[in-house]
């Protein structure tokens, strides 16, 4: 700790930081642009100038940039000094000389950091009376709008996009007052985190294009703290609603998870909520009738109750909230409750939960991963399955740079200097994968291996680290030196981390990774003085994969078992909740099950081919429309709050499934379900602490979802009603659907959208952090459900399949593999059709050219798909992207025969067009 004096007041600060960060941590107002809390300082904008004095006698002082000056002990500075304030107002004045006066039509207006800083710096009269510099804008694709005239050249966009997120297709172009931030040619921004540009840009240059398409001012949005349902990372989000539709999703700071950034699936997938595939009314048909009748929610619920009787089974869902899964389980009884996973995932998850509970290893948070100094990434293409994890892994590769900088005494916040010093020095990031990944540019090693080869190697690594791990005598020479090398790096690391996933649906993989973790722990407990945290985590494909897995821990049953019962036809009805079973099993297996003619009662959000077969189809609420609990890959349970009431026909699944009398309209609250679970099942005890306690004022008053400035409320539905619409009541949470209530100043427990006096943009977040980049004040971090006992459980045993001639692996895409977000138009514009990829030698053997067609045939399916020949792919291996269209389980679990299709036979022109798009993207990325 150091003491500094700011305008005569003493503060205790961290000398390893710069003055700007420390002033903000103290709650002082000091304007800035180019500095970013997690990207450090570069000193470009000059907005953060303060006066620094050499000592108490120094009366003149010098102007310094706070962001470029260490907060060393004894520093004396002044923010208020008139020379400093004068300078800062000049900076704003000149930043504004070419800035258009388009605030009234600018998407950033009202939450614009530039507006805030202009106010704060006291510039309010334009003296510049010459022509402004103007620029041409670019079409940057479906996600990001571009209005270069608003640019103030703070360089944050390129620093985030290129330096932080590893993007390559955005650059600073030109020079002097013609610097331009864009692509060298118009075209879609390819990086998976491009959406963050809208938040990183302090003004309205980069904006959320989807938001602009149905724009609403920030203060007119109704927001609530939410959790992204895009994958199993559990990023915190703040969706905003108006007139019954979600208008946008922005990042909501979580210290341990997403920090300041979310991925583009999470940001732009929200429009699925209003897609035309949305189920909006319940429908029902008698017996074999083809005609549906529509029902009101109340009728629907009655119908459901009427149909639940006798032997009813329920199939849960990893994309449904914990509440809904509990409600279903309770409704049908534990013995009739089945997992909604594919059987492969189900088996993996059993291993994952066991590994979480019994190994005593650390399941690293995103922040932990960022700080790891050696990562072994096994098989999982995290960029496409859990993108935020990949962004963290990318940061971890800089740990070595951090060490170098410390040695050279370069402060870590000196961003450019640290990068310059480190050049290409990176910490070990060892990737085992069947094909090249988007992290290859920061990987220290990339080993292209098919799954079985990976398993052999992992066993060898575990054996090298701890010979007890397995008695291995048959690994090859090549493997042994590789294994030695990897083992050595893992052992040397202070904070090693293994990252894998369940996409390959291989329990052996989970076991193999777990064994390495255990071996490392054994190694260190013998050799190291101080125990090291050893990270092991598995990416989860869906928002509640882990929640459902935990729920099923005590004797869950697989989907396969459910389908068997259905096929036997001795069940009276089957409830399938928020689950498109056609994506979980092969078509043949599903058909066999449905042949039993069991009535299907389906609850879901979107129409699909599976729920078209339902007898009763009930529209359920999305993540935005219900209170829900979601358990992420760490086993961290988090609450999402209902952002708005869905239209009348739609209810959260758990409300349909509750037994309470619909006539009384006494709807169950998610809180009740969760509290009951916490009470009745010791594994979930800690859930009692999930929601922030209501104390003080918040006990009696609710917190508003709408801002103080929410406008037009009395007139919002004036075209339909003469009366002002009645405010919805929220009996299930501490939030109100209105602008009345207590704004919890400096309390982030229920805060979705940070605001503080003078800080209207998302930069207000620092007012809610304990210190910059610190924990949120009173913020809810969620609760960790898996207690990490360190009872040294024995090593896992597993068999490795014998090598096949040809191995298939499934490819995932950030845009497309998640069925819900794939319904959002913007995401759709980035989706590609199904394809197969293979290496050159295999293609040669088959006589297939780049972009040619290949026919895949198994006992049950035959498809023709376009081919991408990749340079980075394991030998004798093909990757298949199914795009939720092709029967994945038929292909991946069967023996596939491959055959080239002659050029003129191509049947699938339409998917071909989509495919072209993919190729072009690949080409632009420098592959192919």
């Amino acid at each position: 700790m150091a003491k500094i004096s700011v305008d005569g007041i003493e503060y205790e600060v961290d000398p390893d930081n710069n003055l700007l960060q420390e002033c903000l941590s103290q709650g002082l107002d000091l304007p800035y642009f180019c500095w970013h809390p997690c990207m450090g300082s570069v000193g470009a904008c000059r907005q953060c100038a303060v006066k620094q004095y050499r000592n108490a006698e120094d009366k003149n002082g010098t102007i310094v940039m706070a962001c470029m000056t260490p907060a060393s002990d004894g520093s004396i500075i002044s923010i208020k000094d008139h020379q400093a304030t004068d300078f800062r107002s000049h900076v704003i004045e000149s930043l504004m000389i070419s800035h258009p006066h388009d605030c009234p039509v600018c998407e950033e207006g009202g939450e614009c950091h530039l507006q805030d800083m202009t106010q704060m710096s006291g510039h309010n009269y334009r003296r510049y009376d010459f022509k402004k510099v103007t620029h041409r804008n670019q079409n940057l694709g479906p996600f990001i709008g571009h209005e270069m005239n608003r640019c103030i050249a703070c360089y944050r966009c390129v620093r985030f996009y290129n330096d932080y997120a590893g993007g390559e297709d955005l650059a600073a172009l030109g020079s002097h007052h013609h610097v331009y931030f864009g692509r060298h040619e118009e075209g879609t921004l390819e990086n998976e985190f491009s959406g963050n540009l809208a938040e990183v840009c302090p003004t309205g240059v980069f904006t959320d294009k989807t938001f602009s398409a149905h724009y609403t001012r920030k203060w007119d949005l109704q927001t609530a703290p939410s959790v992204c349902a895009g994958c199993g990372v559990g990023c915190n989000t703040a969706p905003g609603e108006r007139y019954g539709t979600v208008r946008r999703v922005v990042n909501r700071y979580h210290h341990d998870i997403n920090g300041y950034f979310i991925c583009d699936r999470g940001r732009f997938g929200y429009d699925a909520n209003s897609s035309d595939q949305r189920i909006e009314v319940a429908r029902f048909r008698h017996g074999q009738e083809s005609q549906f009748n529509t029902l009101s929610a109340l009728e629907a619920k009655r119908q459901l109750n009427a149909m639940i009787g006798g032997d009813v089974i329920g199939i849960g869902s990893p994309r449904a909230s914990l509440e809904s899964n509990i409600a279903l389980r309770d409704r049908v009884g534990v013995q009739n409750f089945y997992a909604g996973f594919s059987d492969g995932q189900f088996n993996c998850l059993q291993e994952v939960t066991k590994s979480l509970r019994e190994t005593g290893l650390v399941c690293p948070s995103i922040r932990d991963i960022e700080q790891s100094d050696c990562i072994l990434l096994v098989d999982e293409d995290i960029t496409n399955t859990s993108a935020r994890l990949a962004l963290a892994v990318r940061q971890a590769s800089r740990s070595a740079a951090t060490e170098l900088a410390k040695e050279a005494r370069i402060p870590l916040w000196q961003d450019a200097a640290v990068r310059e010093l480190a050049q290409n020095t990176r910490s070990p990031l060892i990737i085992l994968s069947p094909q090249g990944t988007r992290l290859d540019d920061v990987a220290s090693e990339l080993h292209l291996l098919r799954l079985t080869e990976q398993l052999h190697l992992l066993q060898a690594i575990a054996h090298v680290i701890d010979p007890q791990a397995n008695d291995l005598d048959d690994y090859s020479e090549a493997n042994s030196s590789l294994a030695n090398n990897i083992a050595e790096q893992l052992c040397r690391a202070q904070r090693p981390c293994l990252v894998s996933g369940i996409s390959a649906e291989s329990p052996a993989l989970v076991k193999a990774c777990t064994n390495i973790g255990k071996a490392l722990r054994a190694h260190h407990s013998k050799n190291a003085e101080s125990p090291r945290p050893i990270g092991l985590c598995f990416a989860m494909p869906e928002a509640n994969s882990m929640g459902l897995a935990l729920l099923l821990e005590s004797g869950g049953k697989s989907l396969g078992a459910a389908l068997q019962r259905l096929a036997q036809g001795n069940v009276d009805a089957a409830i399938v909740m928020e689950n498109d079973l056609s994506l979980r099993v092969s078509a043949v297996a599903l058909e066999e099950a449905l042949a039993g003619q069991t009535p299907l009662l389906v609850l879901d959000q979107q129409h699909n081919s599976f729920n078209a077969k339902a007898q009763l189809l009930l529209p359920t609420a999305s993540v935005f429309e219900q209170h829900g609990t979601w358990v992420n890959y760490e086993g961290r349970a988090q609450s999402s709050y209902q952002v708005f009431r869905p239209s009348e026909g739609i209810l959260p699944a758990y409300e349909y499934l509750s037994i309470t009398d619909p006539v009384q309209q006494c709807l169950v609250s998610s809180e009740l379900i969760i509290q009951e679970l916490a009470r009745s099942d010791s594994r979930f005890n800690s859930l009692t602490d999930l929601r922030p306690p209501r104390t003080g004022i918040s006990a009696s008053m609710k917190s508003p979802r709408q801002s103080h400035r929410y406008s037009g409320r009395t007139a919002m539905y004036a075209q339909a009603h003469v009366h002002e619409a009645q405010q919805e009541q929220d009996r299930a949470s501490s939030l109100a659907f209105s602008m009345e209530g207590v704004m919890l100043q400096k309390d982030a427990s229920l805060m979705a959208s940070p605001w503080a006096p003078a800080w209207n943009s998302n930069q207000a977040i620092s007012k809610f952090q304990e210190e910059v980049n610190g924990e949120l004040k009173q913020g809810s971090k969620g609760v960790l459900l898996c207690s990490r006992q360190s009872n040294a459980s024995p090593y896992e045993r597993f068999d490795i399949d014998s090598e096949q001639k040809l191995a298939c692996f499934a490819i995932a895409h950030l845009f497309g593999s998640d069925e819900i977000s794939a319904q959002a138009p913007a995401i759709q514009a980035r989706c590609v059709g199904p394809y197969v990829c293979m290496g050159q030698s295999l293609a040669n053997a088959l006589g297939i050219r780049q972009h040619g067609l290949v026919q895949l045939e198994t006992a049950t399916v035959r498809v023709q798909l376009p081919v991408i020949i990749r340079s980075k792919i394991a030998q004798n291996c093909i990757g298949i992207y199914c795009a939720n269209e092709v029967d994945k389980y038929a292909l991946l679990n069967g023996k596939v025969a491959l055959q080239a299709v002659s050029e003129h036979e191509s049947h699938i022109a339409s998917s071909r067009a989509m495919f072209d798009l993919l190729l072009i993207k690949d080409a632009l990325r420098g592959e192919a």
Partner: protein
Amino acid sequence: MTDRPLTKNIDMSREPFNLGQYRHAGGYDGVLRMFKEMSPSDVLETVKNSGLKGRGGAGFPTGLKWSFVPSGDNAPKTKYLVVNADEMEPGTFKDRLLMEGDPHLLIEGMLIAAYTIQANTAYIFLRGEYLRAEALLRKAIGQAKEQGLLGKNIQGSGFDLEIILHTSAGRYICGEETALLNALEGKRANPRAKPPFPQVSGLWGKPTIVNNVETLCNLPGIIRYGVQWYKNLGKGADAGTKLCGVSGRVKKPGCWELPLGTPIRELVDDLAGGMSGGYELRAFLPGGGSTDFLLPEHLDLTLDYDVIGKAGSRLATGTMIILDDQTCPVGMVGNLMRFFSHESCGWCTPCRDGLPWVDSIFRRLESGEGKDADLQILTEHLEYLGPGRTFCALAPGAMAPLGSALKHFREDFEAHIRTGACPWQK
């Protein structure tokens, strides 16, 4: 011994000395003796004691700068020497003379500097428009390589040096040493934050010394003839000689090597032959476009870093630009402002957005449409773009002629506004 160590071999009416001629004139003798008799730290001490100050503009003591480079066993193995040959300062034409007139002198100087800091690779960062200098340097480097004066184990000394000539593509900011490093690395030439200084983390993050051409050309003399000789060259407080030039309406514009401490009048009146017929000297910029105007009364000052500093300007590059009585001072300063505005790298706000405003105001003033408020805005920019306010020294450099012009030629500015026209435009 000579009293013109920089230019003794130079005669622009013929080709420069080739290696044989250069050696015949005693060239490389000093270096060869250095290899035999001096350790790197001996050389460092010598250069420190010589009092040599950087000739690139800032006048920072060269030996002191070198001493910040890590040395010893723990120091990084890779270090770089970089020659700043980007000469783009308006009104400056001295490094061109050295490179075109005696390229081996520069190579010899580089050998000395590289040996001292133990750099095995040296880059010459040459401005792209200096085509003749490029050709001559390439030839000279080739000769030196052939004769074993560059390359591995030079003359059995155990010291290796490779010199690589890099030509730029026209940006004034590349002369700023850290921007230069970025340019060499193939990046946009924005300057870097200091600290860390290049001496510690420079080119590709390795310890690096950047020196001006003329600075390096001083070294062979110092090594060959010694510190005392070098100190005696200077007539005043500063040691050595300096290339000084005069451009503008003088009878014989040109560039000469003079002992530091020579009175300015000698340069302007004797060497440059005084003002051309019909022209009067109104003021002059003593050291290139980023220095403050001095007035006729300053002609008796001596060419000394401190002396000129005390008079409110800088010796900087030592190439003076003469403003005569028939050139509009507003036009001249406007010309400089346009230059600086265009050459701003676009990194920091005051420079990127302040200079274009200043430039616009000048265009308006020159066209006779200036307003009273314009002078106020110009004045404000003096502080706003002053030293310490911007990321590098480009913008403060631009403010030097502006500030002094507003002081000395205020009436001319006002006349433009008052009469609505440029009084010099007939």
